[in-house]
Each structure stands twice: as C-alpha cells, then as structure tokens.
C-alpha cells in the first residue's frame, strides 16, 4: 500500500514546507510591527547588473549546448534506473545476466562514444 509505505514522508513534507515559511512569516510580522523598513524606489528595485541599467528581459533564448547535455542526461539517467532492478537480483542470476547487462551498457557506451566523436561533449 502506497499510503502506508510513504505516508510518513507526507508528514515530513508538511514540516519541510512549514519550517522555512516560519522565518518568512516572522519577517512579514516585523514589517507589520514597523520594525523592518519597506521604502521602495525605482533605483532600489531595479534588476541588479553591476551598476548599469539592465538591457531587456532575460527570458529569451539561451545556448543550445545546454539542450545537448540535457538530452544526454535523460538517456543516461533512464539507463541507470533500468540497471537498478538488475543490480538487486543480480547475485541470483548466472553469467548470462552479465552478458545481457553488458550488451545494454555497451549500446549506451557506443552512443556516448558517438556523441563524443561528433563533439557534443565539448563546451564551447
């Protein structure tokens, strides 16, 4: 049963949300009690950029290099997740299991070697 197994994580999750919310609430209470200042002006609230005015928004395109690494990550992370069940039962399996697993790892290693050869792993 999922709730029985992981219900206690839910309790901890609620605690994890409350714990950082407390200091933020205290900060807000300090503002209500007029202990903490709140004097805004356009210069103070401007986006920080080492003294010059920030040019445009930063919600735009960024380097395509990141997507290549993200794709590589997805492939390899899924691979590792598939390998965990094999690792748990591995001691009870015979030599064949190693052959099959090494075939699986080998295909992905070939993919990694190919990506490396094509220069996808270079950070430029």
């Amino acid at each position, binding site marked *: *049963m999922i*709730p*029985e197994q992981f*219900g*206690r*994580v839910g*309790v*901890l*999750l609620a*605690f*994890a*949300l409350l*714990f*950082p919310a407390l*200091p*933020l609430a*205290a*900060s807000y209470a*300090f*503002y209500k009690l007029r202990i*903490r*200042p*709140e*004097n805004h002006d356009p210069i*103070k*609230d*401007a*986006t*920080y*950029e080492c003294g010059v005015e920030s040019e445009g928004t*930063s*919600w735009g395109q*960024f380097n395509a290099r*990141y997507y290549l*690494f*993200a794709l590589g*990550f997805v492939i*390899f*992370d899924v691979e*590792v997740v598939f*390998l*965990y069940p094999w*690792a*748990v*039962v*591995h*001691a009870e*399996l*015979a030599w064949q*299991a*190693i052959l099959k*697993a*090494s075939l699986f*790892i080998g295909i992905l*290693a070939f993919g*990694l070697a190919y990506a*490396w050869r094509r220069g996808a*792993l*270079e*950070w430029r």
Partner: protein
Amino acid sequence: MSAALDPIRVRVRVTSPRLAVTLGIVLVLFGAASIGIAYVVVSGMLDGHWYDFRDLGLGMAHLREWLNEVNAGQPAALSAFLGDQWISYITGALLGATGILTFFGLLLLILVWVERRLIGRIQVRKGPNRVGPFGLLQPVADALKLIQKEVLIPIGADRFMFYLPPVLVFIPGLLVWAVVPWAPNMNYLDTNVGVIYLIAISSTATLAIFMAGWASNNHYALLGAMRTVAMMISYEIPLSLALLMVVLMTGSMQLSTIVQWQVDHHVWLGMLMPLALFTFFFSSTAELNRTPNDIAEAESEIVAGFHTEYSGMKFGLFYAVELGNAVAVGAFVAAFFLGGWSLFGLETWIPPYLIFAAKAFGGYFVLVWLRGTLPRFRLDQLMSFAWKYLIPISLLQVLLVAIEVTAMRYMHFPDFVELSLVGAANLAFTIFIVRAWATFLGYRPEREQVLKPTMAKQMGGLRAAEEMRTR
C-alpha cells in the same frame, strides 16, 4: 601595537582566561550532573526497569506496542489507508518527523558557526569570535539581522515564483534525512527502495534552483541557474552509478540492509570500492554547489549565481539549507561506504547513533576542508570531467563489480578471502584506470611545468630577506 602607531585606536579585545575557566567549570559540572541523572534513570533505581537508550528505535517500538493495544478497541477509520494500527502509525510518524526537524534546525544553527570557524582556522584567521563566548551566538545575530532586512524584489521578476524557491529547497533538504539509518532500529523510513528514493528526492533541488534563476529575470541569475542545472544533472549520473555499485555488491536498495551487510561481512564498502567512494563524494560536492564545484555562485564571474537577487531571509534560507545538505552528504557517505553505525563491535557499548553522527560529521569536515583548500574549477573542465572521465570509468567499474559478485557466488572460499580478493582487484583496477584514462585523454605528466614557490631559504635565509626588506 603601540598607541602611537594606531591612530584609529582599534579596541583590541582579548578573551579573558577567567571567562574560559568559568565556562569550562560550568560545562564539566553540567556534564557530570546529566551523566548522574541519566545513570539514575537508565539503571532503574527509580522504578526497577532497566531502560535501553542505545537505540531510540526500541523505545519507539514499546510506545507503538502500547498504542496498538489502545488501537484495538477503536473504529478502523483510517485503516484502509494506513493499515490497521493507524494510531501508532500517525504517532510514530509525527514523533519521528519532529525529531528529524529538531535535529535539522539545531544543525543549521550550529553549522553557521562551525563552518565559519573551521574555514577561518584553515585560512589562518579567527572567524566569528565577538558575539557571545567564542562567537557562539553569531548564528542568532545573523538570523536576527536577516529577518530585519527590507524585502527587495526586482521590478521585472515573477513575484510568485520568486517567493517559492527558498521554501522549495527545503523539501529535498529535509526529506533526504528520512532514509538515514541512525541505528539498527532507528529509521524513519526503512523502505526497500531507499536508494531510488534518495536519488529521486535529491534531484528535485535542481528544479528549485532553476526556478530561482528564472524568476529573478536577471542575466546573471539565469546564467548561474543554467550552469548549475547543467552541472548538477551531469554529476547525477556518476552519483547514481556509484550507488549502483553499492546495490550490486549488497543486493539491496534498503539502507538498513546495506549497513547490515557491511556489519555482517566485517568490511566497509569504501575499502572494497575506492572508486565508488571517490565518485560519490566528488559528485556530491557538485550536487551541493560547494567548492571546488561552486560555479553556481562563482562570485568573480556571475556575481552570486542563481541567488543574485535574493536578499534578507530568503538568502538566509538558501545559505542554511546548503549547510544542512553538506551534513546529509556526510551521513550518506557514512551509511554507504563507512559502515554506518558500526565500529568494530563498539556499537554494543556506545549508542550507534552517536557513532553514525561522528562519521557523518567526519564526512562534513572533509567537505569544509576541501572548501578551505581548493580553488574553483572552470565549467568546461567540470563538464568534461563528468562526461569524459567519471562516466566511462564508472561504467567499466560497474561491469567489473558485476563479474566479481557472480564469481563470488561460484567460489566457495571463506568470506574474508573472497572480499580481500575483491578489494585488491578493485584497488588495482582503480589505480590502473585512473592513469590509463588520463593518458587516453591526453594527459602527459612529464610535460607539466612544475612551479615551486620561492622560499626565504633560497634567497639566503630569513636574515637576508629581512635585510632586503629594511634596506
């Protein structure tokens, strides 16, 4: 310094020996009193029962037995979700979560001081020593100051998303402590998919960091967030591969079983698989965004990375959770690779959770030591190290461990002989592959220029140096 040379008249404060002596006496008296009270309670002088505090899980089990008796007469309101003994289930969960939260909160308070003092000691300066005795009240002063700061949110920012990340980073920060095996019976969540749970929960920190960088609408913050995400996802693969070796060797993803395996075989997995230990530790520093891998907040390049726009208490939360995560990494290194709560049979006498905490703080100390010693790596160096170095050699090591486990099944030598062979094979493989792969990547040690600092001795001794200076 004489007064004549000191026009600003800096007030030099020296800690008086009287204060230190008084504090010491108070501490000794307090310790003696608490040991006496503990002895009276534990030995049963009050009620004739002998209490076992070496494992807090036992006390919890007694409580749950008693609650189950109470539970028997109650209507089974929640039994469809939480099993038949739902009162003891909820009580256990609440008590355990409160325990973890108390530990975590105290940890954050004391670590602000510990970390700064240790770094100060390593960098030959004093660290915080003004607020309270030995600067011990510095974290309280810091928290007070941060709470009182004005809340600044840049005009262009996404206001709702800007508030979320400092809260969200606490979810992985606190939830990873659920699977920590403190003692044989002291687990909050002893699930049979503990390793997967750990990987899944810890990887959500990436999301919070990217949200922070995106919501700030600041070029530096977004750059820092992108770099952090790229680094964290790259190092998650070697980290999972290192844990895969642990699972292969022990045949279980349950953390208590992994520790029990090390106890039963009288060996630490770190000795059997040094490469896995190194990979796990180094990848963890990347996941933590700590030096040598702190390109997330490379202040010489991108101001402060993803939390450039965060100030006041929101910055304090980011700072605090990073310290807590560092100790969590120490705890998991201890559980997976350093034998957990066991210490050569001493766990019968010393409470196992104290041994475990000592090992966890040992791991944390190494992290602080690294931070005080090493400079920062460049982003492209880090990415190359993960993808071209750690991942290929970890894959090879995984296959080697798989072959060893199968071979151990067919061999019928004593445990000691088999594990010694495995350890020797893995050590030899580690030394070989580290050199061989570096050569394959084009590293030639003979071509490296060796730069040595000029010592006073080479200039003719300290007296010559003094003469040069005073001339």
